[in-house]
């Protein structure tokens, strides 16, 4: 089990932003979603997830709101702000560039 942040610095931000880009989610749902989509390769621990969420919120890239879940419990939902969507675009572009570059080096 490896922390995403062990892979590449800042990748966790990208994963979180991408995950909530479709619809607002709470912390638990974000972690679960990342695990599912990555077919359990990427496991996000709470110790990394929550500080990251709070950092992103402080950067005004995501916005938090207390809402009821489908089971009627209060949970803190995160969603992208306008600035956050722009940031996601930027990070995606960067990731493309980086992975392409890594790919080129490995293909040598």
């Amino acid at each position, binding site marked *: 089990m490896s922390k995403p942040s062990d892979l590449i610095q800042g990748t966790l931000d990208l994963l979180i932003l991408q995950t909530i880009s479709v619809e607002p989610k*709470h*912390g*638990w749902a974000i972690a679960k979603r990342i695990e599912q989509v990555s077919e359990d390769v990427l496991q996000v*621990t*709470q*110790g990394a997830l*929550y*500080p*990251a969420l*709070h*950092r992103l*919120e*402080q*950067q*005004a890239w995501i916005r938090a709101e*207390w809402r009821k879940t489908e089971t009627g*419990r*209060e*949970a*803190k939902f995160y969603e992208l*702000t*306008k*600035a956050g969507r722009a940031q996601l675009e930027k990070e995606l572009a960067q990731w493309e560039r980086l992975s392409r570059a890594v790919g080129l080096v490995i293909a040598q």
Partner: protein
Amino acid sequence: MNLRRKWDIFGLRLRSLARRKRVEEDLEKELRFHLEKQLEENLAAGMPPAEAQRAALRRLGGMPQIQEECRDMRRTDTLENSWRDLRYALRMLRKAPGFTAVIVLTLALAIGANSAIFSVIDGVLLRPLPYPEAGRIVRVFFHSASYPRFPLNPFDFRDFRARNQSFESLAGFTRNDLQLSGTGQPERFTGFQVTAGFFHALGLHPARGHEFTANAEIPGNERQVILSDRLWRTRFAADPGIVGRKITLDSRPFTVAGVMPPGTEHPGNEYNGVAHGETVDVWWPFTFQGNPAHRGSHYLEAIGRLKKSVTPAGAQAEMNALIAQLAREYPDTLAGWQALVIPLYQEIVGPSQRLLLVLLGAVGLVLLIACANAANLLLARATARQREIAVRAALGAGRARLVRQMLTESLLISALGGACAIAIAVGGVRILVALLPAGFPRADTIHINAAVFAFTLAIALATGMVFGLAPALQAARTDMQDSLRAGGRGTGGNRAHLRLRSALVVGEVRLACLLLIGAGLMLRSFVNLLRADPGFRPEHLLTASVSLPDASYKTQETLSFWGRLTANLDSAAGIRAAGVGTDLPWTGYDDNIGGFTIEGKKPRANEEFHARYHVASPGYFRAVGIPLVQGRFFTDGDNMKAPLALIVNRSMARRYWPNEDALGKRLTFEDHPKEKDWMTIVGIVGDVKDKPDSPAAEMALWWPVGQTPVSVNNMAVAVRGSSDPARLVNDLRQAVRQLDPTLAVANIRPMDDIADANVSTPRFALFLVALFAGLALTLAAIGIYGVISYAVSQRAHEFGLRMALGAQPGDVRRLVLRQGVKLALAGVAIGLVGALALGRVLCSLLFEVSAADPVTFASVSALAMAVAALACYLPARRATLADPANSLRSE
């Protein structure tokens, strides 16, 4: 980064900081939710509950650690650093209490003075007038070449009201006091006769009863009255059933039609002027009496509320068109007139606007000087702290970080200054309001309020930025290596440093000179004002006014009353002279009469003979102290049986009979005079100007009270004694009561008070500008002292060497003095040039002084140079104490 995001971030940080507890609770709740989800999942996977709990907790890792990390993420560098900067700045200021006290105190004085003046400006100029949609209220005047602002004729007014399209409501009003007798001492109340719609024009409504309708304007219906809230409470015990009750005013029954609510402010008026404010106690109907074709007399003042889409200029254009229309119907009386429509705000506030703006300018200059001074002191300290700053830079503090640290210090200083300034402003405003000239508009609305606090805060912060920036940037440029190596005696870059500080001092001296010259000019003008001969003798003179109700005083009774009153007063012990007249000097009386005929003369083209008209009893001139130039005063013999007599003033005699003797000349008001209609000039009296600062006296004529062609029911009484006029009050009351106990003796005032009120505006301006100039000069002196001491400390080594080589202490002293005087000279020179330009602004506040008065300019230069030399003297003496041996040893 876009603005919205910056704002969001700021809000979030503020929340993390300010609502720490709430944020913490949220965090715990959020993590607990996660834990419960994990627990659910574990249970769903078939774990026994205890096992599921343990696994969930394990999976989560330490809660406190996560919380701490989240806190870290929230905690922001900027705020944390600011806090650290602030604590550091506090420490630095505590370390140098003397320095801190001087700088905070000077700033507090400057900012406090600004806040105090601002609170006056806020109350008088910025606060809207106390009427709904006050911007639509205007005053309407007639206007011609000889009378720039003239009241209206009632019938002209009525036609305007009927024909105009511009006004939602156009109303007329004219001063006419009423006296109440019956219970207690008779009292006269300031009153106005108003047309229908007067309160509607102001946007006010009676709290009880109703406003007068057009019906009340019909002669015979005028016995109705609306009372002020004050009068209703003090004289009628706030009787809730007052409306409809009859009260006796001027010996006649009046029906109370309404009571105005508290805060009903009179809009101010010109004719027998009453100042703006809660100054009026009774309003009663104005009635249109007489022949509507006779439109010569103008005494009705007009006020109107414009329709929403109409501008004052638009209304004025329409009024002019209406005058042209009416002039075709009444060519004799309306030709040559134009309309003047002035917004009420301008009317009330206009005259004091310039004075207040000049004061704001003066106090702003003081603030600039205080800024320069603070910058200077901080620069001096930055030099002393060069090593500290270099060490911090060497340890990795970035330039921006250093600038921020220094700015935090200056902002802290200015914030402290601002806090003290509030205290100064609170006291200052009280003093200011007490000092305000008599009749200053809206003085009661001047308070320290939120706007004043905001202003103080804003200028304190701006001040901090302004005076902090130069020293901060300078500090950030400090050459690290140089400072560290030189061991604190660094000399590199000090030349530029000294240049900056010298420039600041030159600027300070310059601004101080501007203020000094302003104060000097005002002082000269004030002295001129006091020295000028008023044309009468205000000392030992008691004045009052007495009004005889028309109901019981017809012409004969009136004349007999005045004759007996003055005779009784004359014979009383301690009274040297007594008289009655239509008016007293310097009380704003300005009734004119024109169109008379002077025997054997023709008026100049486009002009008619005109003069201020007055009525006086025989003793009036002696009582007031107006000297006789030629001929005689009136006597009791000037009555209905005698030929008509007239007294004119010197201005009128000179104007209409140049190079001739006016005495014995005749004039008449009749178009086809018979022999008995001619009035003969029996005396010429000295000139009295309208106000002490009027450019010249108006032409004036007096009728003897015994032959008066106008009503003399309202008269001013003048009683001259030989000592304190307050002693005469009882004699006067007694004399009036003896003749008629129902009469009120109103407006009892020593003439000295009236004279004093007339110079209160220039005195007020002089006091403040002089105060600010003194403050400015002190600050500039501190600035010079600071720079020269610094220069001396830098050159101590050099001075020691010079003395070792044979220079005398006197030589060294001269050297230092020369440096300081050079700075002051530069400042004074620039200041004088600036003052010449400034003079134009001050012109209207000056009396018989040129704005480029050489005496003022010369004395201000001398004063500034002397103070500068004094400020240099201490450092110069210190320079001579440099020890030659010390200098030689270190060489």
